[in-house]
């Protein structure tokens, strides 16, 4: 039924996009959790500088970021060369390159809610945990993460949704290789270019509904979590 509605190549793009979004948001959670915790506790004059660098993808035109990433991924660069000698394939125009680009591009969307949640967490919970004999790592796992359920879900949701809707960076570093780098937004662009408006309508509507449901679920979860905290 889905194949009939979207077409085989679009369905392939949907599955690739979901795969990319799951891997990216999973990796982002692993990276952003300790990074946000460190930043929330870190006191230094250099902190605004570091925060600005990490938040750059929020304001930078995706094509600018994509351009720099394309240069970094090329076989002439240290990163591209290192990847090629290690894996044996190009980083640019590959799914792996797409994952790396997506992680960098969506990092602030995962980082900001976590940083904000950790900054607002009452430190006395950690003081109590310390006097109860918890190590810093154990307190983070047993106390901080369960208490930060809402920011973690928001971070996951935002980074997942943002990866699904990614266009500029993917176009620059991934190109448009079906089954390898052709994600939903690129497929939609191609359908419009080919004047296949019916398929484009179907895909655009599906993306619209998905984005709306995702945001509504996040707002709902956040509201429930806040009222739980307030009680």
């Amino acid at each position: 039924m889905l194949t009939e509605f979207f077409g085989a190549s679009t369905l392939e793009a949907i599955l690739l996009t979901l795969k990319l979004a799951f891997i990216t948001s999973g990796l982002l959670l692993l990276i952003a959790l300790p990074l946000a915790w460190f930043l929330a506790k870190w006191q230094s004059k250099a902190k605004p500088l570091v925060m600005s660098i990490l938040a750059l993808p929020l304001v930078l035109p995706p094509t600018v970021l994509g351009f720099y990433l394309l240069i970094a991924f090329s076989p002439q660069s240290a990163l591209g060369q290192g990847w090629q000698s290690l894996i044996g394939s190009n980083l640019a125009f590959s799914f792996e390159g797409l994952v790396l680009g997506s992680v960098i591009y969506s990092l602030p969307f995962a980082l900001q809610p976590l940083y904000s949640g950790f900054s607002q967490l009452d430190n006395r919970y950690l003081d109590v945990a310390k006097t109860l004999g918890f190590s810093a790592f154990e307190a983070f796992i047993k106390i901080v993460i369960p208490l930060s359920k809402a920011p973690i879900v928001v971070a996951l949701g935002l980074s997942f949704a943002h990866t699904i809707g990614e266009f500029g960076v993917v176009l620059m570093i991934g190109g448009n290789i079906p089954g390898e780098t052709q994600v939903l937004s690129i497929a939609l662009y191609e359908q419009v270019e080919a004047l296949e408006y019916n398929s484009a309508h179907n895909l655009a509507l599906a993306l619209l509904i998905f984005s709306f449901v995702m945001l509504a679920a996040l707002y709902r979860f956040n509201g429930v979590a806040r009222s739980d905290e307030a009680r």
Partner: protein
Amino acid sequence: MQISALLPNRINAQISLQPQSRFIGVTGPSGAGKSSLFRALAGVEKSAKVQTPWTSQKVGIVFQQPMLFPHTDVCGNLALAQRHASPNAMSIDACLRGCYCEHLIDKPVQALSGGEAQRVAIARALVNGPDVLLLDESLSAIDIFTRRKIYQFLNNLCVSGKLTCLVISHDLDDLALFSDELVFIDQGRTELCGKTRDVLTQVFAKEGFATPSSVLEGFKVTAQSEARDSNQSQNAVVSYKHGIQTQQDQNVLTLQGNDQCQSENGIERVEVAGHEIFVTAESVSYLPKQSAEQVSVRFAVKACDVSVDTNTADFGSASTISILNALPCVISSIEPVANSLSPLNVEENNADTKLADTKLTPKKLATVNSAKVLIKLDVLNSNQTLYASISCISLSRLKLDVGVQVIARFKLP
């Protein structure tokens, strides 16, 4: 026992305590640095330099805000505290019983009232088995009856040597009743430190309390001690030598069916300076045992509950009034009490008045704008002190003055 804590620009406290003190009260005005001191002692202030005798011991802290982990219920909070509990820690059941919160075990944290959450927070700290427990106004939201029972439970742990408690409170009656020693903190420094009775006297003088509490210590009258004394007297021993007469046997009011009353009515009998005093069970706190035969106890008496009787000849026969307790005393000072509506004002003809001149005699009374006076009474044959807050009319009518011997009568504390 020496404790010192230094937090730059916040506290610089040096506290010297007796090694046997196990329940230490800490008080002082808001913003004095008490909480910072406790945070430093608990090891959660990174910049603090602290020296305590508990370096190898487990220190627990309970804040005024209970800080129960909201992602789990009461049972979950206790289970988390038990993960790293000392081998000799009390069981969860014993802690819940002691803190009067067994019925809350399955409740979500969000469903607890402020007082309930404080009780659970104390139980959680005890489940972890600390050697030293710091309570930072941790019982402030608990009703007085439950609070006293929890203090008694904690005090019993202290008396049995299982725990050392440091307690911040603004309730001087609670501290008077349970503290072995009292520390008064102001502006980050230790202003006063020492035996509760002595520090309280200074605090009351310093802060000008209208109805301070005095702390009396004595021995609990048990069936054993009664049997021991029965050869000497039918009633409790009274060796009231007043320069006029010695009274025995008739001096203490004995309740009918006294033993029954003691157990059924929750009344304890305490021997203070040779006189039997009746005290409600919840108002008594136990002191570390000094001898196998005697159980030392302490209780507090509010100044407003003490009346002064000049008829010293009828010490033990005042059977026409409901006040049970009587102690022979000598007046050691009389101080005016500031009127809350019109502050203490010595008239202009005493313009050069200094603090010492505010000691009142009936003659001076007429010049002072104060409705009440605070009388300090030294209990005869003892180094203990009582306060009585009486009206200036009574002071004048009874011709009370420093050195006059009186009977202090007070209600069941």
